[in-house]
Every structure is written in structure tokens, then in C-alpha cells.
């Protein structure tokens, strides 16, 4: 296997090439810098050249040819960024062999495929790259046609290792009562405002137990950002919904 700084992760190329969010990239700071030292070098170089051009009356860019040269390089850099973003967004998650064995799992089957994934998750503590790889595959299981039990397993794992990268996939499970519970179990644990927003967004259009469950989750999260939304439900005609909203507001208030 290639050393980590030589491996190309198309799916995460965008996240890992630009210093927008180390946590989101899934790599620690040192790893990121080793991986991207060349990119950093060129970014700094052209940033300095740009400053010279703009503020130092040319600096080392003394001729029109030099300035044209810089202009084309900047355009190339912008085009490169756009390409990276497109590649990153359009590259689907590929399931590895262990995950492929998981997709058809149903109750009564051997749990061994689940255990293999769980082993990998537990063993990946502190290995950001493997965690990212596993989380993206778990989240992808929620999007594709897979058994209910498979999605249930993915949500149970995301309860422990889910981050904001899983929020969108989890949000897609609010369509029915059973999967909505599973989604909430994981979303409740994700320590990021995007999880509050996903739950708040899901309030609209939800009803019955699903709606009560979402309200309960916002209460458990002590989600201050959802107070105004919850206040609207406190006088709901459905007494279960109204009571849930009042309890959630009381928990947030505490």
C-alpha cells in the first residue's frame, strides 16, 4: 500500500486540498501539511506575487509579459480549484468488500458482516483517514437501496462516530416513522449546528410520532437555536405534540 501522502482520495480531494476546515477534511494538521506541501508552496508563491503586483507596483513583475504570465497562472489555479470541486462532488462513494457484504443483511442472518465493520470502526479510533472512509460509506448506506436492518446498523454506528458529514444522509431518513427514529438516534449525538438545523428542517412536514420524536431530540440536544420553532408547537392541536414541545422547551431552558 502506498504511503498516505501518495494516495489519492478523489472523493475528498476538494476537502483535503484547501485549508477550509481541517476537521472536515478528516486529517490532522501535520498530515494535511505533509500531503499538501507542494500545493501550499504554490499557493503562497502566487499569493505573494499577487500582492506584489497589486500593491508594490509590480515588484518582481516588472514587465507586461511577467504580469500576463501571472494572470494566466491565476486563471489556471481558479480553473484547477473548480475542477477539483467538480471531481470531488461527482465521485460516488465506493463500498469496499466489507461494506458490500453488509447491504443485504436482514434480521436472522449471521451478524458477522456487521461485526467486521464494527471492529474496523472501533480499531480506527485516532485514525482520521480510516474514520472518514468508514463514515462516508456508512452515510452512503443510508442513501442507497439497502435493507432496513442495514440502515439501522449504519445509524447505530453513526451514533458513535457520526459527524456533520453524515447529517445530510441522515436527514433523508425522515420519510417514515421507523427510519426517522434511527436518524434521530444518530443526529442527537452529532455535536454540530448542522444537526440542529436538520432536525428543525424536518419539523416541517412531519406529523404524529415522527414529529414528537424530532421535538424530543431537539429537547435532548438542548437546542437553543430551535426555541422559536418549538414555541410554535407548544400550542399544537395535537396534545402529544404540544406536551413534547413544552417538555423540550423546559429542557432547553434548564
Amino acid at each position, binding site marked *: 500500500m502506498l504511503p498516505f501522502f501518495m494516495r489519492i482520495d478523489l472523493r475528498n480531494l476538494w476537502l483535503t486540498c484547501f485549508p477550509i476546515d481541517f476537521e472536515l477534511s478528516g486529517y490532522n494538521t501535520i498530515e494535511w501539511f505533509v500531503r499538501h506541501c507542494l500545493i501550499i508552496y504554490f499557493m503562497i508563491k502566487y499569493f505573494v506575487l499577487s500582492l506584489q503586483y497589486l500593491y508594490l507596483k509590480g515588484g518582481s513583475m516588472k514587465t507586461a509579459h511577467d504580469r500576463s504570465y501571472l494572470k494566466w497562472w491565476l486563471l489556471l489555479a481558479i480553473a484547477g480549484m473548480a475542477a477539483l470541486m467538480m471531481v470531488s462532488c461527482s465521485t460516488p462513494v465506493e463500498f469496499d468488500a466489507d461494506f458490500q457484504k453488509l447491504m443485504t443483511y436482514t*434480521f*436472522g442472518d449471521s451478524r458477522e458482516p456487521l*461485526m467486521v465493520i464494527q471492529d474496523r470502526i472501533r480499531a480506527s479510533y485516532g485514525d482520521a483517514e480510516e474514520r472518514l472512509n468508514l463514515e462516508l460509506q456508512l452515510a452512503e448506506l443510508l442513501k442507497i437501496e439497502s435493507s432496513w436492518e442495514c440502515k439501522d446498523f449504519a445509524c447505530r454506528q453513526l451514533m458513535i462516530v457520526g459527524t456533520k458529514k453524515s447529517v445530510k444522509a441522515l436527514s433523508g431518513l425522515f420519510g417514515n416513522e421507523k427510519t426517522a427514529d434511527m436518524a434521530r438516534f444518530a443526529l442527537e449525538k452529532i455535536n454540530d449546528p448542522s444537526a440542529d438545523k436538520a432536525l428543525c428542517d424536518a419539523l416541517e412536514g412531519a406529523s404524529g410520532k415522527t414529529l*414528537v420524536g424530532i421535538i*424530543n431530540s431537539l*429537547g*435532548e440536544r438542548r437546542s437553543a437555536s430551535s426555541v422559536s420553532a418549538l414555541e410554535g408547537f407548544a400550542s399544537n392541536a395535537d396534545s402529544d405534540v404540544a406536551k413534547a414541545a413544552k417538555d423540550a422547551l423546559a429542557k432547553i431552558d434548564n
Partner: protein
Amino acid sequence: MSKKITMGRRAFMKTSAAVVAAPMIVPSTVFGQNAPSNRLNMGAIGCGSMGNSNIDNFLKRDDVQIIATCDVDRTHLNKTTAKIEQAYAKKNGMNDYKGCKEFGDFRDLIARDDIDFVMIALPDHWHSIPAIMAANAKKDIYAEKPLARTIAEGRAIVNAVEKNNVIWQTGSWQRSVPHFRQACELVRNSKIGKLLKVEVGLPTGKGIELQKEMPVPDGFDYDFWLGPAPWSPYTEQRCHWNFRWILDYSGGQLTDWSGHHIDIANWGSGKERTGPVEVKGAGAYPRDGLWDAATEYSFECTYADGMKLTVKNNSDTGTPMGAKFIGTEGWVHVDRRGMTTEPMGLMTSITGPDEIHLYKSNNHWGNFIDCVKSREQTITPPEFAQRSISVGHLGDIAMQLRRPLKWDPDNEKFIGDPEADRMLQRSFRAPWRLPV
């Protein structure tokens, strides 16, 4: 050591009513202290094996009247209610007795004003919600161990009981067996020197083969049985006594027995209001089949004062069942069969008048009833139960995550491990939630 529970609204109302009414009615002494008006009305929530065991103990008492039963399995409910009514008919020399109302929903039972206390003996995943609701309704509570399925739920129970000033007894009945108290007094009074270590041995678990989905039996409200736990297909080996072996509902032999021998370890070592600062260990969890709780386990807790507590399943580990206190000058081992010591002379040692005397109770159910009347604290208040099951939960989390964990026993959070913190509480299936 005991703590007076301040009088709650219901107790105040009862006392006030008695004071006002006393001159107008026949004094209770005419009928004796167990006249019907002096009896405590009990509601039994959970009519399975432990529920029935507790009911049998309360049926022996003339000062308790069981007036309501609740279970989601109608077979269990009918059988238990019939047993109670037959017992009262026999006790009163009647051919028939009908005075015990059945409920399928514990909320309806708790809502009855004429119930003084509830006995809760449900699967662990159902411990917190009824307990908190009962406390909020100012009912006194006798509840089975372990305190709760998670550490966060346990803390919520403790808070609710303390906020509402209700009497609580945990079913950790070994505390009311004299030789357990004697062993703990030996340790507390430094008869084995400075306490260095406690070794706890608990039963080994077992797995079961894969199961197929089955139709839910008539009269069994399976959805209610699952309650706050994740939805799963029904199969016979999931429910009733076997809930213990499935992590969605319990933690296997480890958590089932934490409320016994770890409770005794805490009692003897004086760790009833705190917990370890570090925990590490390894467990074996079935990789296949329906049951998934740890079958073998071995973990070590370190306390702030340096004391070690080890917890192991008892087969193949050389750790006998029970709690063994090891000090600088000897040891004490105690289990349900009795006590052994080194030096042997400690066996006959009597706690002197100036030494530490631990809370004395020789009847666990009687201690609860006495405390309901006196408003004193029971021998196993919820804080003690929280600290005994916390050790089991912490060990289980460390074994599941397969790494050593640092624990802050004051704030009940892991130190520097937000991922482990996620395992301190579970989300509830809708519509259930922890009551406010």
C-alpha cells in the same frame, strides 16, 4: 448516616388529614396498627419474575395492600393479579376477593391518587421513565436494580427522587443480609488494614443461536414492551427474562449483577457517592446470534485514592463470585453463602461501640416500608444505586470501545473522549422521552 427526607405534599396532606380527622373517627388503635386505613396502597408495575418476587415479599406484610398491577403481557398480568387476590382472600378468610385493578399502561396506574407507592420491576430499558413519572407524581418507589440502562438515565432518576422528596429503595437486597453488612463493617473499620483492592466476581454470560422473526403472541403489547428502545422484530428469546442478554435493553450478567456485588464493593470501600477515575479492560461479546451482551469480561477501575476495583466473570478467571476486599493486613471475601477472612479471627470480630456501624436492615422490603412511614432514607437510596451500576456501565463502555477511559465521577463525563460520552445516554424511540 441516615438522612431525613423532608415531608412531601402527599405525606403532609395525609398527616394533616389524620390530625384533623382523629377526633371524629374511631382511633386506629381500636383496630390495631394495621387497620385498613393505616395500610400503604401499592401499585405493582411489572409482573414478571422479579416483580412477582417483590410482590410475594410485600404480600407477607399486613401494612401493605396491593391494589393495582400493571404489565404489557396480559398473561403475566392476569396470573399475578389472581395470585394477589387469592392471597388476600385467604388472609381474610374469604372465598373470593376482588380489589386489585389491572392496567396495561403504567401511566394510568401512576395517575391513581390512592396509590402510596409503586414497585417497579421492568426490563432495564424501561427503568427510567416510570420511575421519574412516579417520583413526579409523589409516589414512593421500590425499584429493581440496576438503577437504569444508562448513566444519564440513572442520574435523571436520582434528580427526580431528590427533587420530589420521595422515598426510594433499590432492590439491592444483599445490603439487608447481616453477613454482607458484617463484612463491610470489617473493611470500614480497617480490620484488614488499608484497603488496596476489591475483586468482584460476577456470573459468566452466554449467547444464543440466530433467531427468526415470530408473530407476536396474543395479549402481549410488544410495541409497548420495546418502548424507548430501538424497534426490532419480535422473537421469543428477546423478551421477558432474556432482555438481560441484549444490549438494547440491558448489559448482560455484568449490569444485572452490578447492583449486587459491586454495590457491596462500594459499601465496604465507602465509594457509594463517587466513582472511579480510570477504567480499562476487555470483554467478549457474541459475534453472532440474538444475544449480544458481554459474556466474558475483565476490567479494572482506579479510584482517586489509588484503590483498585477489578470486575471479572467468575469462570476461568479464578475470581469467585462475590466481593473480596484486600487490605495491607488481610482480606475479607463475602458472597451469598457467607464470609471468609484472613486472618480467620476476623470472622468472629464484633464491631465495637466506638467503631463504624453501617446502616442496619435485616429485611429489605421492610426497610422500605419503615422508611415510607418514617420518611427516613432507605438502606439503598438512588445515589448508591447510581454509583454501583455506573461501574458496570463504565466497564461495558471501555470494553466496547476497546480503550482505557478517564472518568470524572463528579460531573459523570469522560475526560477528553467525546465519543465515549455519546454512550452515556441513549436516544429514545418516539414518542418516549425522559420526563422533565
